[in-house]
């Protein structure tokens, strides 16, 4: 069938050469008109809710007033971007954002890899499946649920964690309001929600490793750790690199909802990140242009980083993402 189709395709391409390429294109467009009708709603979605906001970024070069619209708001060049870099607040916020990103990379990123390697060593398939079932669940819970469960468990008045701490004779800890606990709490919640789900892609990569390699290694007397180190890890290196690139591209995407839910006036000093700042400055204080400029800066850096990381990966002989 495939063969028949390719010959038909080839004929289609060769026949209308006389009629001219235009006529051929026009004929194909007409023949596929219902396909375009099918694509249209989705296309409109992307134009309206993705590309119109990109165009809307021009307000970061304006003093945008909602009642004037983009057409009539005055242009101010790089004013908001200059403000950004001279604002002491912003440097603090950028710092907070980068620290959370660093912690993400250091403490979260390796966890799914290690989990997948451990799961791969499990031979009892019922056990393996049960563990997988349980650790995927948190991924489907909203940040509101994750944060709410953390709140009821960690609160000073009656939360089980503090009750147990007190029961063993220690001082209760104000996890929810103290700036010192914000970052560990953030990263633990990320691990809780996403580590299990993150194993899926590594498990698939591991599953494609040739079993004979392990058998050969065992013949040579290689222990489990050596097998993991010399066979499994190299086999999933490509996947690790790709995910690392994507992660680096997401450097500033730390999850508005998540951080916003943990943010309060006591931990704001360490918990305010670019996203939450954009929300507060933009929608609460109506500084549309300034906060659009911050958002623009963020998206732009993200795009640059993903391109850079991709390049680097290719130089190192990996495939890259695109």
């Amino acid at each position, binding site marked *: 069938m495939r063969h028949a189709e390719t010959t038909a395709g080839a004929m289609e391409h060769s026949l209308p050469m006389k009629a001219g390429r235009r006529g051929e294109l026009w004929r194909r467009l007409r023949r*596929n008109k219902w*396909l375009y009708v099918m694509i249209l709603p989705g296309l409109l979605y992307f134009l309206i*809710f993705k590309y*119109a906001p990109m165009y809307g970024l021009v307000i970061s070069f304006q003093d945008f007033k909602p009642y004037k619209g983009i057409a009539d708001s005055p242009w101010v060049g790089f004013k908001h971007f200059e403000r950004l870099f001279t604002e002491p607040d912003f440097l603090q916020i950028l710092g907070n954002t980068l620290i959370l990103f660093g912690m993400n990379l250091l403490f979260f990123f390796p966890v799914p890899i290690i989990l997948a390697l451990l799961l791969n060593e499990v031979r009892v398939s019922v056990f393996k499946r049960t563990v997988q079932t349980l650790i995927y669940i948190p991924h489907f819970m909203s*940040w509101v*649920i994750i944060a709410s469960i953390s709140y009821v468990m960690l609160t000073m008045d009656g939360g089980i964690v503090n009750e147990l701490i007190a029961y063993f004779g220690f001082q209760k800890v104000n996890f929810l309001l103290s700036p010192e606990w914000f970052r560990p709490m953030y990263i633990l919640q990320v691990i809780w929600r996403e580590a299990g789900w993150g194993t899926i892609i590594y498990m698939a990569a591991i599953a494609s490793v040739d079993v004979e390699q392990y058998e050969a290694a065992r013949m040579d007397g290689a222990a489990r750790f050596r097998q993991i180190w010399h066979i499994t890890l190299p086999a999933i290196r490509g996947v690790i690199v790709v995910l690392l690139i994507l992660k680096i591209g997401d450097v500033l995407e730390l999850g508005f909802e998540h951080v916003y839910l943990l943010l309060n006036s006591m931990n704001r000093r360490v918990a305010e990140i670019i996203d939450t700042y954009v929300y507060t400055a933009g929608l609460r204080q109506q500084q549309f242009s300034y906060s659009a400029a911050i958002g623009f800066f963020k998206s732009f850096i993200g795009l640059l980083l993903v391109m850079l990381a991709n390049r680097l990966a290719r130089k190192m002989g990996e495939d890259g993402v695109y």
Partner: protein
Amino acid sequence: MIEDRTISGRIFSAFNYTLLAAIALASFLPFVHVIAGSFTTNAELAASKFVLIPKVWSAEAYQFIFSTNTIFRAMAVSAGVTLLGTLLSILISSMMAYGLSRRDLDGRKPIMFAVVFTMLFNGGLIPTFLVVKELGLIDSYAALVLPIAVNAFNLIILKNFFQNIPDGLEESAKIDGCSDFGILFRIVLPLSMPALATISLFYAVTYWNTYLNAILYLDSSAKWPIQVLLRQIVVLASGIEYSSSLDGAVPPPDQTVKMAVIVVATLPILLVYPFLQKHFAKGALLGSIKG
């Protein structure tokens, strides 16, 4: 594969099984604790410091939260948004994915590029808010659906799945006089049930979990979905923000009440999870590997 017979191998296995069991338990225990806590009295919760099994069982927290219609209303909003949103998203996404899966479609490459580009760069919160406002969607339920109606990642998963359906089936249907819509709805979609189930689950979870868009676009608290109400009851009431943000005269809700609201918001997902679990791991891979 054969189990390791060496001593070091056995020690490793024992350690590995214990560790994984502990991790699995740790990720699930908080849910069990909250469920257990919601089914007891506040006095019992405060007194016995149990983790899993209370001595006194009680449904008073549920009686309390269902004594007004606030929770019902929020659940109804979330259910409606989830149901209609998922239907709309699946419809738009599968039509677009099918169109883009057809190799004979002109313009397919630039459109795909435009879709992928939105995964790398976006206009951000403020410009998106202004677009939604310009469309007159502020304070409407449509604002919870339309801005997230199509997810580029889900679209690509579907497109890849459709591409793997043998072309021959479509060709012969076409010879039989089937239209493109007919092919999609009578042949391609019925063959793609696993992928559709996965993507429906992803969309449904996204809509059920909607929080950001609700606080961005909804003004009236009567329209709040369950996530916003949950946050209002649990998170705000727990911290020092309480007195300033809710009416300070009302005492903060009991711990058991908070837990009951968490359970109510979590339950729908826990209920559908086992049915769809077998599909989603495969679905998630289809998209992420081929991109």
